[in-house]
């Protein structure tokens, strides 16, 4: 079965380029002429994942993208502080972003919430003090 994969490095604290990986993924999906709704879901999740790395990770992170006929996989992994309580972190408005980032207009606590709303399937692995892996799946048919 045909499959396509790409990996992108996400630099911590690089707000200017945050979103570039998701933009590349978006372009690929558009060239396949997938529905606007699917592209939107994947793009939003990708961007929120990127922003988590930019704001919280201790080192650079990775966004991995894989596309098959049946599924779209998006995995964002970082070596960061980890998430203490995933259920709490997914609540609307819950944020551990610093005041600095909030002043820049980020860290409104919608990231993981948006991911849960948009991904067809979501699995988060997180170890305190070690890092976080967010695995998302999407159905290309909508």
């Amino acid at each position, binding site marked *: 079965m045909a499959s396509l994969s790409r990996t992108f490095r996400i630099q911590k604290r690089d707000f200017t380029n945050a*979103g570039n990986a998701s933009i590349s993924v978006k372009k690929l999906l558009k*060239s396949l002429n997938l529905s606007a709704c699917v592209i939107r879901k994947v*793009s939003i999740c990708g961007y929120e994942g990127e922003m988590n790395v930019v704001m919280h990770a201790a080192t650079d992170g990775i966004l991995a993208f894989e596309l098959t006929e049946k599924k779209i996989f998006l995995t964002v992994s970082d070596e960061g502080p980890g998430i203490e309580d995933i259920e709490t972190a997914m609540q609307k408005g819950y944020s551990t972003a610093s005041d600095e980032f909030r002043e820049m*207009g980020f860290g409104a606590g919608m990231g993981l919430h948006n991911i849960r709303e948009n991904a067809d399937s979501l699995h988060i692995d997180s170890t305190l003090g070690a890092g976080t892996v967010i695995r998302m799946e999407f159905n290309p048919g909508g």
Partner: protein
Amino acid sequence: MADTNTIPCYVLVNSDNCTGCGACAKSCPTRAIRIKNGKSIHLTDSCIGCGECIRVCPQGCITPAPFDPGAFKKEKHPVLFVAPVLYSQFPDARPRDVLTGLRRMGFQYVVDMSYFFEMFQWATRRFIREKAPELPVLSTMCPVVMRLVAFKYPGLFGHLNQVLRPVSIIVKEAAALIARKEGVRLSDLSIFYLNPCPTKMGIKESARLKQSPYISRSIGINQIYPELKKHITDIMESDTVDYVETGFEFEHPPCSEGILWSICGGESAGLKLDKTLAVSGLEETMLYLEKTELDIFKDFSFIEFRACREGCVGGSLCAMDKYVAKSAVHKISGRINRSKNFSKEIKNRFYEQKWIPDKKTTEQMEKIFGGKKKPLSIRSLTRIDALYGKLPGYNCSACGAPDCYAFAEDVIRRRCKLADCIFIKGGN
């Protein structure tokens, strides 16, 4: 007669002077240009008329689709529609002198469009505050941006300003009035636009939108600049010439806010909304459209996009340097210092009742503004990836494609041969 490559619509390449340098191919936002046999060619259906290739061609061999700018002189009832950017080209003249100059050139009626822009702005503000549209609402003023959205960002259709674009209203209303006044049929009028960019030079859209009873044509500002400049200088040197109203309803010189529409930020500033953005230049416009698709600007109520840097003053058919023109805009706008000149009655007539048109479907919009590339399959994408991996990645454009990835895609789409890459051919 020079050998010319006619392309779909907006621009024309004079092959005699083309050196095949590839500057146009690299500059094209929709990757619509390739170099074949040392000459620039345009791929049909991908040109959005942005004029970037006209701007970057070092040989000056790319021009707007050809049109004789003097053709209006043969017409019986030539009517000219003027965008406010025109005034920026004459920093020392009053807008009314510019309009008088155009009449002296031979246009029977000259209609300043900023009058309708102001109403449009007022309607847009109400639309955003009262109809709770998807935010941010995107400006529909720049036709290149509209085509970009249709071509590359169809997911943003729902964000486009739903208020009817002013140009569509003004031409209909003004033409009807003039025809009545002259006692002629609509089809007896010849409609012209004076434009700062080649986006309207083409026939693509007018051919598809057949509802108008008259044929409308575009003239680039730089095509008539020398002649108009002469008239304006004459008018300014003479004390006796003054602006004569011909008693036609929309014949107002613009107000100070209307003048600002020619620079990026003018449209959004007049909206007086809390959070707006104004983005100009093709590259930035595309980047911010990408970002808008990621939902980054959902807190903003309006984004004004202009494909040309600094707005319409940066149009490739302007006669004046864009920064000089921009400074002129501020100067003229400050000098007129006149506020909006439409009454509530007029607003009601045009916008209150039916300012939001029947919902346009995505397909309709795509038909009007967009072309679409044939979609690829996952297998083709994988093959493009594999091929791309074998290419040098220098993006040298010697093959004629703008970069290595576009070349790989061309090969897979069977538009060119792998041996067109000099590195592959040379076995390196």
